[in-house]
């Protein structure tokens, strides 16, 4: 009973582990790559697909409750993304950006379910009790850099294809290194080295985009999980009596739990909107953007 709050969250290691490697009786030779976060990702995939399909299986002009909920989320997301990337690019980029939003949102919120990160393998001290979970059975999917970097890389590949399709390869190079501001003649020639240097910086910033996107999301969710775990065990770590530390383990995490709900949503929004901004920056023509 006193252990129950500990189910809410637990400190998780930096990298996702595969339970098949050390802790299961018969390790699968092909299964070492299936980490606890990949397992959670698969569960989230199933949930997202089920949720969206159940909402859109029988579309009506006058929608039912579930269709209405899904439509209102999609509609507000669609108008937000349209406002950033413009009407011309929204049809092409919306499905990917909305997929990113839904997948990250549900992954983030999934990590707040009791048992995620707190049930797993460790040094056993009683029948079903371990003092520290070394390899959780379920790890928050977005607290694995493989996933966040994977999504960011997938997006950057899409971004590159869309940008080159929109501007052309030469247009893309001009967009990066070309002299902007409508300068012509000798003045443009003088400015060329400066804009080339600016282009090099731009290329470096583009290379770092997936890193910044993925580390931001990973950091927030990983820290959130550990923060919740720390708040649950705060009383114990301060050496308070067991009754007080038990009470604290219930009361202290509550505001942080809501904070994590908000952060889960905000991180999904931030990731999606940044991706939309990157598309807008590269696909808007010079006349519009400079």
């Amino acid at each position, binding site marked *: 009973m006193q252990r129950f709050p500990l189910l809410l969250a637990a400190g998780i290691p*930096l*990298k*996702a*582990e595969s339970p098949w490697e050390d802790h299961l009786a018969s390790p699968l030779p092909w299964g*070492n*790559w*299936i*980490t606890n*976060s*990949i397992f959670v*990702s*698969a569960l989230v*995939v199933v949930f*997202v*697909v089920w949720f*969206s*399909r159940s*909402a*859109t299986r029988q*579309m009506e*002009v006058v929608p039912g409750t579930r269709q209405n909920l*899904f*439509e209102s989320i*999609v*509609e507000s997301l*669609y108008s937000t993304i349209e406002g950033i990337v413009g009407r011309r690019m929204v*049809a092409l980029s*919306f*499905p*990917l950006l*909305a*997929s990113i939003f*839904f*997948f990250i949102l549900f992954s983030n919120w999934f990590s707040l379910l009791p048992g995620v990160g707190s049930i797993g393998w460790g040094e056993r001290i009683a029948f079903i009790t371990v003092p520290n979970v070394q390899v959780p059975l379920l790890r928050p999917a977005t607290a*694995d*850099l*493989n*996933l966040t*970097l*994977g*999504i960011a*890389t*997938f997006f950057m590949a899409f971004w590159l294809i869309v940008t080159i399709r929109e501007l052309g390869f030469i247009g893309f190079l001009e967009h990066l290194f070309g002299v902007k501001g409508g300068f012509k003649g000798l003045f443009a020639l003088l400015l060329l080295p400066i804009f080339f240097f600016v282009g090099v910086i731009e290329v470096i910033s583009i290379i770092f985009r997936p890193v910044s996107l993925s580390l931001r999301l*990973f950091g927030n969710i990983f820290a959130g999980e550990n923060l919740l775990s720390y708040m649950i065990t705060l009383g114990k770590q301060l050496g308070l009596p067991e009754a007080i530390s038990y009470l604290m383990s219930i009361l202290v995490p509550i505001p942080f739990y809501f904070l994590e709900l908000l952060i889960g949503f905000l991180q999904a929004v931030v990731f999606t909107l940044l991706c939309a901004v990157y598309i807008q920056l590269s696909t808007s023509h010079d006349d519009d953007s400079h």
Partner: protein
Amino acid sequence: MDFLSDLFANFGINWPKFLSQIILFATVYFILSKFAFKPVINMLEERRRRIEESQLNAEKIKKQLAEAELRYQEILRKANEDAANILKEAKAVSEEATQRQLKEAARQAEQLLARTREEISAERDKMISEVKAEMVNLVIQTASKVTGKILTPEDHNRLAEETTRQLAA
């Protein structure tokens, strides 16, 4: 590069795990874009199109209504104008007819009066001539009785002429 390798190792990044996560996300992307977002976007576009169409129709109807109102006002104005013209014409015609009838009545009255006057005049002349003739006879009879002689036709004629001349004077 060693730094990156160390970083990736510390964060547990390796190709199979990385690719599996990409495949899982790609699955979500392809399924959602084909089976969820496409119908929803189509539905939203359809709804947006209908709303725009309704707004256009409403504007069209409003415009038609304004035009109909204008036409109605124009017809009403023209009808009023026509009615006023007709009334004016009717009044003029009526006035003319009245005047014509009055003139006709006056003319007839005049004719009647003239004829009556003529008749009265003729009647009076006839009466006067009768009276004169009677007077002549009376004078002749009286004269023959007073004188006691039988008047000759010459006397008769002379007396008659004398009487007539005196009556005429």
